[in-house]
């Protein structure tokens, strides 16, 4: 695919008006155009028709051939026009797990008072997305791309093409919006580690668990209503925060997912996958968990935000 040396291609296809994060309007120098196979067939047909018209001295035959040639020209310019002036703005990418398909949303905007039909976008050269942009409107397309490897997946050069209106010419351009998708490691389901396994983490003893009742604390927004001590609340004066039962220790205590626990397996990606599996399992079970990676320590908690933070750390681990 890459016929051009990278610096040349970068110069040719780089964003001119944009750093890649703000909307780009396609200018005429970005849009390329070439005849399609159908266009070549059309040209060959025209040549044959012209010979016939000359041989039989058909005046209207000449006119028809020339009208068709003109149609080729106007079809070429209109194919070009279908792309020129289109604005492309990057959207927000949802993270995916490795092995899934990442979707890169692009917002295509059309200032013109007529729709732009039959645009085809592709990030990987095989999976194509078709869309139409309404007159003076906007549409959003999600470009699929295989997320094979854990880490940050950058959106490569996108091929945006259109054969509309006649299919004789294909106009295309290579916008390159700066978009990355976070690819979490592929989770591997293994049994959760024992909470006590974190032997060296002495200071963590006494942290909240779910087994042994140890008193009350004021409720925080993240606390489940199941843990509110409703009887105690009824006894306490009004305008006080609701008391929450505090539990300590036991198997329901928080989990620590520590890189060191797995480090001796020697396979980084495997370790990350196992850790990812643990995060998902703990989150599903509602058990607070902490994550410790070399250079990263995330204190125990639960919830979507926490999960996202942990998975993000796992994805970006290097």
């Amino acid at each position, binding site marked *: *695919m890459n016929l051009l040396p990278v610096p040349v291609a970068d110069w040719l296809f780089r964003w001119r008006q944009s750093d890649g994060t703000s909307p780009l309007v396609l200018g*005429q120098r970005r849009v390329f155009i070439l005849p399609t*196979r*159908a266009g070549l*067939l*059309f040209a060959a*047909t025209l040549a*044959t*028709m012209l*010979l*016939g*018209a*000359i*041989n*039989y*001295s*058909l*005046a*209207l*035959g*000449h*006119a*028809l*051939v*020339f*009208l*068709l*040639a*003109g*149609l080729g*020209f*106007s*079809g070429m*310019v*209109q194919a*070009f*026009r279908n792309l*020129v*002036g289109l604005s492309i703005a990057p959207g927000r990418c949802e993270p995916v797990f490795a092995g899934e398909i990442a979707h890169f949303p692009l917002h295509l905007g059309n*200032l*013109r*008072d007529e*729709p732009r*039909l*039959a645009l085809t976008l592709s990030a990987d*050269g*095989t999976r194509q997305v*078709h869309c*139409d942009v309404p007159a*003076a409107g906007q549409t959003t397309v999600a470009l699929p791309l295989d997320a094979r490897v854990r880490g940050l997946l950058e959106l490569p050069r996108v091929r945006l093409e259109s*054969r*509309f*209106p*006649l*299919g004789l010419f294909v106009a295309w351009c290579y916008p390159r919006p700066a978009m990355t998708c976070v690819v979490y490691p592929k989770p591997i389901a293994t049994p959760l580690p024992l909470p006590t396994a974190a032997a060296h983490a002495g200071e963590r003893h006494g942290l909240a668990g779910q087994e042994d009742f140890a008193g009350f604390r004021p409720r925080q927004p993240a606390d489940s209503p199941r843990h509110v001590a409703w009887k105690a609340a009824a006894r306490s004066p009004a305008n006080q925060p609701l008391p929450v039962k505090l539990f300590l220790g036991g198997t329901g205590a928080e989990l620590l997912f520590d890189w060191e626990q797995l480090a001796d397996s020697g396979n980084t990606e495997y370790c990350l996958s196992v850790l990812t599996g643990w995060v998902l399992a703990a989150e599903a079970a509602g058990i607070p968990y902490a994550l410790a990676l070399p250079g990263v320590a995330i204190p125990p908690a639960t919830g979507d935000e926490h999960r996202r933070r942990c998975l993000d750390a796992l994805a970006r681990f290097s």
Partner: protein
Amino acid sequence: MMARKPLPALERGSTPWLIVTALAVTIPHTDELPIWLSLAAAGGFMAAFALWRRGAPPPGRWLLTLAVVVGCAGILVTYRTLLGRDAGVAMLVLFMALKLLEMKSRRDAHVVVTLAYFLLLTHYFYSQSIATGVWLLAAFLIATASLVRLYGGPACSPKAALRRAGLLTAQAIPFMVILYLLFPRVAGPLWGLPQDANRARSGLPDRVAPGSIADLVLSGEIAFRVRFENPTPDRDVLYWRGPVFEQFDGTAWQRQPVSGPLPAIEVRGSRIAYESTLEPHQQVWLLALDAPLALPPGSQVSPTLSAVSGAPIRQRQRFRIESATDFRFNPAETDESRRRNLALPPIGNPRARALAAEWRSAGLDDGMIAKRALELFSANGFVYTLKPPLLGRDGIDDFLFSSRQGFCEHYASAFAFLMRAAGIPSRVVGGYQGGEANPVDGYWVVRQSDAHAWAEVWLPGRGWTRIDPTAAVAPARVESGVAAAVPAGDPLPALVQLNSAWLRDLRYRWEAVNNAWNQYVLGYNPDRQRELLSWLGLPDADWRNLVALLAAGCGLALLGLVAWALASRAGTDPALRLWQRGLARLARRGVVPAAGETPLALARRLTQERPELAGPVARLAKAYCATRYGPSPDLGALRAALAALR
């Protein structure tokens, strides 16, 4: 390498478009195609439609192969060839019908449209009239709209597809005009035309016998058109000369290949220059006005004064000819020629021979004998009619002494016979007489119904002299045409005998339009191209100049198109445009909105800073916001508010 991408599937909604396209480009061919093929094609279209309605897959490959084989065999039987023009058209129609039955991918559909464009061309083999042009332009639009629909997908409504096709076609027209005018024209054919390239069309017969001209007169077709450069001569001298018949076999006058010196013409009056546009008649006669003096290159005058083209006239052609209507032709004729024009069969028509001998023995000179013969026709109740009774073995005797009804060929033939019998060299000339001036464009139109035969006698001292015995019987034939001369009820073509003034006027207009079409559109040939170039100031342009001009013209057109594509790129909301115009007016008064300042904020700020402007600006800002963002846009109110800010 990359894996081969699967072909894009044919989107269901485009199939009806393709069927309609196929119909539009094949229907006019039903006239030319054998009936079985028209029915088969119709069956194919209906089957394609039925498959589409049911969403059924295309029929199997073996079935289609069988259909191709059977169809080709049928064409082979009908035309005895698979090549050539008509068989080729039949093959294209067959393939069109079958291709519609095997459409799976978008590429198949594109092939159908390409085939449709090609089929459009084949119609011009048969007709290049205005009506054909209009129908084919419509079919062209439909074919283009189906391409648009094919690539535009379901979001492209029929109306949008047609509009887009119209826009594309409108943008193609400048290129067409430039290419039509400047593409280096080659006078065809490039290679031998197949036998069926030109079909027989009506024209002057090869022999003159009773009925041979009368048959032709039944056609209202146009034979040629003439435009005189100087004042038009009188109608009764408009004799357009075709073949000359010198050999009489008892019933028919035949042409005889003659060689001899070129005719000697003494011009006595003024020369008449004119331009003649001849319809194809597959013969060599140029039908020049008697007597031709200057002919176009590639043609010559025969010893019998017929203007003869080097090759048969197979296409409409235009010539410039100079003639003189007052002339003397071969006052000194060769003995050989005189002998030839005195020959008669040894027996037959005894009464006519006796009559001629009687005139001769009465001591009349040649001119007086001719006069006697004409008096015979005018004084004895001869009738000029398209429906003469049949004649017996001695046809001339029967005609002269019993039936006395005939058309021009009877009179010319009988007259020439009498003259030869009396010892005066004479012969029959075929051609056209008269014509009709179209007041709309000034062209004279000569039709097949103006076909005529007359006689020519050689008189000592005067040479060959035209004598039209028909004029003696029916002077109206020469003065105003055949419709005025024959009895009412004779089967003349309707066009020729139009009596209603407005119908006649309508016909004049229609024919003038057709003539303009023929002259300027269809008749655009290498000569006209040279004329145009010399008018453009390039009198000696060769093909290189043409190509350069062509490239420049097309380049300009393309540039214009690209400018259009780029200019309409930022379509702005009309309300925004009006607001920006308001801002421009404020800027002239020194009011510039701060960065990010909304219209309403600007209006509020002005109540402090420029109270005299605050009112109009507030109204403008409110109208703008209401129009741009409100539920019911009202551009009128916005315009009124803008006007207040003058």
